[in-house]
């Protein structure tokens, strides 16, 4: 395990340094969750203890108080150049999840990010995305360009060959850099443990419930669990049926589902 984590780490740091070498105005996105905190840590290692670019926190104002507390504490401890992205105008107009979740996420998250990118002129963003998170993430690359409309043209992406990460010359607004793309959820927890990284208390069980991921308060639901430390969390991960089962099984399910949907008249 030791070697495995170190190999993951080396590749991630190599990617982060590559991004710094190619882009003039970089920033890293931080949600205070375990993945982005681990990514911040990797950035610190890459640049010998200090992160020489801004750390962006998208503040929807609906986050858990524990998230704000954690954010401010770590920002001080690690001497971070914290940049808070907040869509003040939308909040003034009363945008909230009750009035429409899609609208709320779009205005308070996506647009807040867009405006800070435009305002500061960031040309590269480091994000803590992993391939094993969702289906379409599997098509992501280590260096993933966003065009002028901030769109990700995944069907049309340029090839990523070997470890030669390239910056497009045109139709480009910013590059998304994903240094932990090849890590699994399990790897991240092992790394958190090995490096003794600070962890948001929301991840640990309280009253038989804990949060598997940290979103905004009104829209994040805890899962029933008694895992109160990292070992228990990783054990829980190993034993619960994860919906994303690889390979053959997935194809079979897909074929079955298509057939079912046809028989029900959907397709």
């Amino acid at each position, binding site marked *: 395990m030791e070697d495995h984590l170190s190999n993951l780490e080396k590749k991630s740091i190599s990617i982060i*340094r590559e991004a710094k070498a190619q882009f003039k105005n970089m920033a890293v996105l931080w949600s205070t969750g375990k993945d982005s905190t681990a990514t911040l840590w990797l950035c610190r290692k890459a640049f*010998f203890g200090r992160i020489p670019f801004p750390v962006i926190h998208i503040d929807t104002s609906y986050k858990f108080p524990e998230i704000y507390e954690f954010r401010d504490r770590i920002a001080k401890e690690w001497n971070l150049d914290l940049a808070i992205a907040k869509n003040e105008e939308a909040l003034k107009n009363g945008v909230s999840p009750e009035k429409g979740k899609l609208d709320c996420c779009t205005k308070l998250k996506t647009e807040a990010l867009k405006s800070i990118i435009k305002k500061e002129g960031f040309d590269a963003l480091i994000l803590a995305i992993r*391939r094993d998170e969702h289906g379409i993430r*599997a098509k992501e690359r280590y260096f993933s360009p966003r065009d002028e409309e901030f769109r990700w043209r995944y069907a049309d992406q*340029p*090839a990523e060959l*070997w470890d030669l990460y390239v910056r497009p*010359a045109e139709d480009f607004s910013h590059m998304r850099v994903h240094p932990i793309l090849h890590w699994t959820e399990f790897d991240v927890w092992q790394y958190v443990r090995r490096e003794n990284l600070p962890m948001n208390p929301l991840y640990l069980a309280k009253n038989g419930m804990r949060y598997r991921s940290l979103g905004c308060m009104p829209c994040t639901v805890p899962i029933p669990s008694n895992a109160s430390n990292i070992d228990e969390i990783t054990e829980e991960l190993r034993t619960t049926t994860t919906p994303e089962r*690889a390979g*053959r099984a997935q194809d079979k399910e897909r074929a079955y589902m298509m057939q079912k949907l046809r028989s029900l008249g959907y397709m």
Partner: protein
Amino acid sequence: MSLPNINLVVIGHKDHGKSTLIGRLLYDSKVIPDQKLQEIRAELQSSGKNQFEFAYILDSLEEERRGGLTIDIVHTPFKSERRIYTIIDCPGHKEFIRKMLTGASQADAAVLVASAKEGIQPQTKEHLFLIKILGVNQLIVAVNKMDTIEYNEEAFREFSESLKKILSSLDYNDVPIVPVSALYGENVTKKSDRMEWYEGDTLIQVLDNRVKLPKPLSEKPLRCVIQDIYDFEGKKVTVCKVETGILKIGQPVTVMPTMEEGIVEKIESFGREAKESSPGDSVGIVLRGVSEIRRGYVVTGVAEKTEQTREFVAELVIFSDFTLRSGDIVTIRLGTCETKCKIEKILRKVDPVDLTVKEEEPESLENGEVGRIVFRALEPLYLEEYSDFPQIGRFVVLGKRGAVAAGIVLEKRG
């Protein structure tokens, strides 16, 4: 204790039982979990096949790996008592080239699967030629489908003789040739009693005994690719990745392409000072005696004489909407170096499907085509041949939206 790993590339026509042989190797070495075998049996039954098909194992694993990656190589391990063999599967010609170019690992040895009944196909020769270029010098031949010729000794000997002629013309000598039947498991992992006339070893024994372990990357000469220079506490720290060799404190080095000599004063690895660094490590180093250091340069050992290169020959595949003509100036990215090169001459255009020469000295090369090209760097460059140092022997050609073509360096011309 972990077994040493050998990367194998299996070449041969699909109809000659390549997939069956791979499936058989996996099955016999018991690396396939029971549950998977049951799944495969169930699938075969539901599509009306009664006999267990070994080729299906490979198909099944391939699908599992395809995941979301658009360019992929199937890495499938099987084992013997002494080693773990990872098969880098190259299913077809066209894909072969792209996969060869984009492959993560280099093969240490190749297994050629030929059919006793069908004989050698024209593509086989080209396949062999290509893997020779890639620096694969160890070759084993498995003459498959012996069951279809009743395990006949004379047919095998005749076939072996004609094979040996072809092999030596390609500079493959002393190649072990093993008669097998992948379908019935004869001579693959178990000695066959249907071929008593054959006194040699089984395929797996030949792999164990005849294939030498690759030289570990750390034993190769030192090559460190420079990523960036940081100003840290008043000092200049060079951040680089060790590709081959070992980097040690106090080691004298030569920086290419400037050919300046210096000494490694300090090595820093993730917040800790280190005495040495090995392949795969990304470290910060302080060099003494070097006046000019830049991203794109490479730190090498002083022992071997590394040279600058201006002209080189490369095999190139274009995979995007891009046309290349003699006289064009392109920007290539090799390691961390981005530099301009002139297309001096397009030597020939190769058909990516059957690898035959389509045209000598064509005027241009387009999307989907493979060609052999002479490049001339506008500034002194440092690179290596792909078969020696793949990490600094491969490059991409840059277009407006990113990489448009991929190439491997075949020959340095000075």
